[in-house]
């Protein structure tokens, strides 16, 4: 044996030793690993944390989060087996959603676990101080009779910005992919407004925050439940009432109406039922309402508390609620 083979062997032996030294931190015995989708809004994190605690502490599972900013990519990831459970998906108004449900739900590669229990409401909002003023901040009511779309043109100058003048500015739905249909409403209702699409929710909140802290007029597309409502007092403007003629599943928005309720849903791997029936039971029965979730989201986003701490507090106070979700 010559020198280099010896060294090679010694090297191998050292590597093996090192590996055995570090590989010690193995996985504890558990019934399996469940992969949750982690989206980038807090509501999704809270739902996930509640179910995670149930699975890890009451059913002896391990939970891993797969981060993916929302979007139809989650469908693809579920089919591929990268995600087992995804919480609180907002349906949006995009016709693509029907295509996805047809494509993935239809062939049974993704299972629809049911509604979250939340009721989503979209609309055009203005700050309350525009209507009633705010004495504590020294803001006067600038549009006391503004309550529906019919008065918007009267006040368009209030909403105008350098970029939109002489028209008023409407901060439209920031995500084009949702196809919320602001443009169609502005056009068909004959509003002298320019819908501005900012591209991300972040930009939208930043504009909202900036305008609100300075007490400026603002017309913005927003939705509930959302943490901003806990910080800012916003009033939803009335739009023509929603009927079934307003929206077409294929073509999207046809008439300028108010938005219908959105029912966010949970979905995930179609094979979960066979692989881990007890997990399947929990995620199918999980349900949370606007009020409960908003309270927790407020604690996390506004008071900057830890998600786990907030969730545990809620669980301690609502044991009878989550006990019922666990399998018998």
């Amino acid at each position, binding site marked *: *044996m010559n020198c280099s083979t*010896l060294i090679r062997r010694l090297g191998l032996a050292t590597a093996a030793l090192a590996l055995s030294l570090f590989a010690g931190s193995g996985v504890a015995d558990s019934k399996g690993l469940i992969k949750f989708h982690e989206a980038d809004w807090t509501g999704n994190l809270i739902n996930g944390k509640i179910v995670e605690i149930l699975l890890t502490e009451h059913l002896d599972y391990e939970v891993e989060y797969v981060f993916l*900013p929302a979007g139809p*990519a989650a469908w693809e990831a579920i089919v591929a087996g990268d995600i087992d459970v995804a919480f609180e998906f907002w349906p949006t108004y995009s016709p693509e959603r029907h295509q996805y449900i047809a494509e993935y739900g239809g062939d049974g590669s993704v299972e629809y676990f049911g509604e979250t229990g939340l009721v989503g409401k979209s609309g055009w909002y203005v700050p309350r101080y525009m209507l009633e003023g705010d004495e504590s901040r020294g803001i006067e009511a600038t549009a006391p009779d503004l309550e529906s779309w019919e008065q918007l043109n009267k006040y368009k100058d209030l909403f105008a910005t350098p970029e939109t003048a002489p028209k008023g500015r409407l901060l439209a739905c920031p*995500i084009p992919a949702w196809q919320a249909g602001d443009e169609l409403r502005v056009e068909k209702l004959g509003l002298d407004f320019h819908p501005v699409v*900012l591209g*991300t929710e972040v*930009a939208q909140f930043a504009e909202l925050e900036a305008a609100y802290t300075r007490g400026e007029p603002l017309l913005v597309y927003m939705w509930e439940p959302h943490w901003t409502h806990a910080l800012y007092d916003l009033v939803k403007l009335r739009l023509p009432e929603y009927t079934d003629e307003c929206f077409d599943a294929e073509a999207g928005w046809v008439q300028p109406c108010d938005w219908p309720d959105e029912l966010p849903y949970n979905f995930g791997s179609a094979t979960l039922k066979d692989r881990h029936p007890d997990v399947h039971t929990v995620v199918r029965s999980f349900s949370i309402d606007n009020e409960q979730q908003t309270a927790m989201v407020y604690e996390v986003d506004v008071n900057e508390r830890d998600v786990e701490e907030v969730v545990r507090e809620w669980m301690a106070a609502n044991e009878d609620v989550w006990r019922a979700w666990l399998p018998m």
Partner: protein
Amino acid sequence: MPATSKERYQWGALIAALTLLLVLSKLEVLALHAFPEALSKGFTFAEWVNAVEDWLREHYRWLTRGISEGLAVALKAAERFLLGLPWVVVTLGIALLALRFGGLRLALFSVVAVLFWGVVDMWKPAMETLGLIGISVFISVVIGVLVGVACSQSNLMWSIVRPVLDTMQTMPTFVYLIPAIFFFGIGDPPAVAATVIYALPPAVRLTNLGIRQVSVETVEAARAFGSTTVQTLLKVQLPLAMPSIMMGVNQTVMMGLGMVVIATFIGAGGLGYEVWGALRRIKVGWALEGGLCIVFMAILFDRLGYAISQAREGRAASRFRLLPERWEHQPLARGVEHAIGVVYALCAALSRGLTLVVASAAERVARLVAGDDGARGLRELVTRHAFLLTSLVLLVALVVIDRYLLSFGAFPEAWEYSMRKPVDRALNELKVNEGFYAFTTFIRAAVFLWILDPLADLLAWLPWWYFTGIVALVAWISAGRTVALVSIACLLFIGAVDLWSVSMFTLATILASVLICMLIGLPIGILAACSDWVESIVRPILDAMQTLPPFVYLVPVLMFFGGNVVSAVIATVIYAVPPLIRLTNLGIREVSAQSIEAASSFGSTFMQTMTKVKLPLALPSIMMGVNQAVIFAVAMTVITPLIGGAGLGQEVFTALSVIDTGKGFEAGLAIVFIAVVLDRITQAWSRRRQQALGLES
């Protein structure tokens, strides 16, 4: 063609063009504003891309998913290994590496950088990022060197690979995140795949370059001694190309770190996730912490990589290890250095002693197995690597102590310091400050009303064929027929995929950003060139601006200027202005002393020397700066949609959120083509100035 007649000819063309423009505005008859539908109807590029993707998915997904599974295992192992190591060991390990190759100063810096991750409570994400980058870089380097070697052996191969590399580098990364999801799933494996695609080009380029630069004589000599092609390559060309290859590795690491935040969009964890999470919640302090972690990692690897690539050539021996050399005459400094020297000598003695013991033990064991020769060889090998051996012993000892004797535990909480609250508080105060608000509002209105809006209106108003004609003319005059034809092809593609008006808006944003860059960058560059004092202030700021991931300053821009197109322009300016300042400064400083001397001897004043001599001579360099600013501005269009930017970048984002690869590619290619046209034209300007000045043959 002589210069004067060419000049006249250009002016004629320009005037003719302007007249045509005037006629056009009067006669609406010719205004074929819309791109012919017949063309765009037949050219369903997005559908073709998607069809190819579907086919690939159907037939080759098993392969990519397999790779993905393998990657996942490797990543898990790397992550577990790094997180399993006590923080003391990681810090010491990196510090020893830095000490070995870069000396005491680099070692101290690396300790600060590594401890910073712990101090801001980002140890875990930092280790995740380290693992991800490590594996991505490893794969990139392996593939890169192999492809680079292949390219260096065949001109045909290189001419095929080169345009592919160009596209890989200019194509907005968000575009290939979509197919990465389809083929590699989500999470860390597709992030590795995307990072490899982005970080591969410099490894290929610099390997190819390094091998091609080995002199013909050396290769001939090797051949003459009877080496085969493979032998020449392995024994002569590759070793000689090593510095260049190491440079490629260094750049690959840098590019990989540039992907950290973007990879979050397909589910990669680590520091990028922290930055993105902070951005989502508009928390500047948090984003800054994550961003600084990335900056420290980047600087650390950059310096370390540089030190390693220089190590072969031997460092210039410096008498002072820690303090600057110019303090040599201070007794205190000498005392400190002396003390350090003693510690050094002590450590070296200890290390030698230990090595001796290990070496003789190894020799004795080896003699039993491999006989005398092997034993002596081993002994020599061990003695030669005293530093490595001592470091390993030290590190393993620490791991053993941590595991079996007393645990170092997690990073001590008492050392943690969060800069989130103070930073956020300061920014919030600034936000409601009346004076500052008036200032930001003024800038916002000024940029929009005077620069962006007029430009956007003009570009939207010009008919597509007219604009194409103007661009082709400019390209022809400045860069020749080929570039003109390429420009026409690029613009026709943009029209045919139905992205004309969106692209014009993007172009307006880019031009507005570059214009503002020039307004800000040129004066600063000139000032820095005039005064060393200004330069010493400007330089570190530029360094920080260039290493900070742009995502970090998106948040303050968003807070101060709101979410709108102007914010996008401002963020672009911040990103694109550093190279312009640098090259302006460099260009002026490089003007030869003789020229300046000559000018002053003819009695020119300071201003005259500046405007008549320095600036004209520095113009090629300044033009290169403008060219760089343009390229940087184009790259930024994909990131600004996050704070309200519109145009092609937003199209890419929308495509990503509905995972439509075809649409993403269309918009991505449109961005690439805009970059190509702008790059070729501005480069040609710079080159022509250089030729005119006789600076380049």
